[in-house]
């Protein structure tokens, strides 16, 4: 699908990011690190969940950017990571420090297993299969029996570092992991493998001439994306302190895609945070108008999709108008 190139991506050039944007990321990190000291418990909790969701948004964005594939089934990998962490704690008494790496590795394996059947076919099959995957999640959790806690779900309460305040750990673990994931993805963009995936997406024949098939690229992109999503699930379980089948539905997966699209498919810190905040905070802010939430998400998605393919033009027009306004004033 070579025309899938500029889905929501507009700046895929490989140079190191300009200084102001890197500076902005560091400023954002410092501000985030200071939040628990300033804000109350509610905001510490909410922003912690935002950051876990930001990692989830990154996983969907990665697949869109490097694979050119839409997934509405990433709730499966989120749920897998979350339940991995919760079950390891419940059954073996292991903390998230073990649960998170285990989830990442097992998630990558699952990702390959899932993408394998459609490795040589058009991307639409993958998109449709992800829909089935998302709908299968609650069934599978309930089928797993008492180990997975049924409808009520499981609690995650063991601290990563014993002795420190668990509330702070629930905030700082997602922060640290989000920073690491963003750094790793930035490195990946400059790596050989990153180039292979982008070449296979844009110029499949050129990639094949270099010995990399599109099937390989799809499996690799899906494996990495699934691993990141499992990590996000593990973080979500830890910072929200509970997992249940209700938090991993088809809507969850579609909202993740919405988060990715409204962050313009960014794989940077600020974009991911914006996407994570959008999908975490909108349902909280509009709690009284719960039925309107899908409309808000759908409208945001359509707005970005219809206008987003020329963000440069729209921005330029906006800037010109603003500048014009200022000159007039």
């Amino acid at each position, binding site marked *: 699908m070579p025309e899938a190139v*500029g889905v929501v991506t507009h700046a895929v050039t490989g140079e190191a990011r300009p200084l102001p944007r890197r500076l902005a990321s560091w400023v954002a990190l410092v501000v985030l690190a200071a939040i628990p000291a300033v804000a109350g418990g509610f905001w510490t909790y909410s922003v912690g969940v935002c950051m876990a969701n930001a990692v989830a948004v990154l996983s969907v964005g990665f697949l869109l950017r490097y694979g050119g594939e839409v997934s509405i089934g990433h709730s499966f990998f989120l749920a897998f990571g979350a339940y991995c962490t919760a079950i390891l704690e419940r059954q073996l008494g292991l903390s998230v420090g073990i649960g998170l790496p285990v989830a990442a590795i097992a998630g990558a394996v699952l990702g390959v297993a899932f993408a394998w059947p*459609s490795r040589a076919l058009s991307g639409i099959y993958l998109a449709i*299969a992800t829909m089935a995957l998302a709908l299968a999640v609650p069934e599978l959790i309930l089928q797993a029996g008492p180990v997975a806690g049924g409808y009520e779900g499981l609690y995650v309460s063991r601290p990563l570092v014993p002795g420190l305040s668990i509330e702070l750990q629930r905030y700082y673990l997602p922060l640290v992991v989000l920073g690491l994931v963003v750094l790793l993805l930035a490195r990946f963009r400059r790596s050989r493998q990153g180039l292979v995936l982008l070449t296979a997406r844009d110029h499949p024949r050129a990639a094949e001439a270099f010995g990399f098939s599109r099937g390989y690229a799809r499996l690799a992109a899906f494996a990495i994306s699934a691993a990141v999503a499992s990590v996000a699930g593990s973080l979500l379980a830890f910072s929200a302190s509970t997992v249940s089948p209700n938090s991993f539905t088809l809507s969850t997966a579609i909202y993740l895609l919405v988060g990715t699209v409204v962050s313009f498919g960014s794989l940077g810190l600020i974009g991911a945070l914006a996407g994570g905040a959008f999908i975490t905070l909108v349902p909280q802010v509009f709690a009284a108008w719960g039925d309107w939430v899908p409309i808000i998400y*759908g409208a945001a998605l*359509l707005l970005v999709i219809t206008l987003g393919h020329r963000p440069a033009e729209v921005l330029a027009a906006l800037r010109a108008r603003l500048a014009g306004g200022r000159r007039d004033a």
Partner: protein
Amino acid sequence: MSDALQDLLSLVWTGIVTGCLYAMGALGLVMIFKATRVVNFAHGNLAALAGFVVYGLTAMGGGLGWVASVLVALAIVVVLALVSYGLIARVSEVSDLRGTIATLGISLVLQGVVQVLFGADIVNLDLPVPNWSATVAGLRVTSYDFAVLAVSGSVIAVLFFVIERTRVGIAFRAVSTSAFASRVCGLNIHAVQGLAWGVAAGLGVTAALLIIPSTFLSSTTVASFMLQSFAAAVLGGFSSLPGSIVGGLIVGVTMNLFSYFVTSELSATFLLVLMLAALNLFPGGILPQRGGGSRA
């Protein structure tokens, strides 16, 4: 006849009946895909909206008759499908993938509209067919079965006649073979694509209205009923209309057997495994593709 065989026979029969409905849903998805290269994830939500409009006009005190309400619902849905197509045609000029994402946006908006207007409750909606059933050779057949078979059979027959024998059908086949070449030849491809979207929406609504009596209606169930249609379309290779009918029948029968003999609580998982297996075993769909893209 032994009991086991009796069970099997009646499971296959009801599977064929629901399979016809999945096939109708799948035909709509495949038509849209063939005409515009977009996978329409809003198909189920549009059909659910139609179900609720009919429910609102008949049961919720609208006081309209069944035929009138179905016509109103069809009109609303066709208009909405054309609006969706208008939105998506602009977007998918950039890439097909974008168009597919845009259908997800439309599906969210439609789901929200249904929730705002009709609430998130589950409602029942019955077909106005006389309640009648008979036993033929030990097989229990009902008036509902015949209504489904008659409606879906005639709708599919008309659809295939139009596609195979009329100028509109030739135009549709031309656009689905090569939109660019059709435009070069002077076809108004927007009209053809819009028609495909409208007809597909009509098929989806018909299927949904027929399947709702056997389950129930809520803002999310009909959307997931569409999963069966997606599975049928995937089995058929996603660009073959006859293939999606065969796919629909296979999905209907095998799902019935699976939920009776194994478990009824893993239907989405079953469909997932069925799709993945079909993709591996029949990468081109279960029916062999005819070359040249000449026929449906």
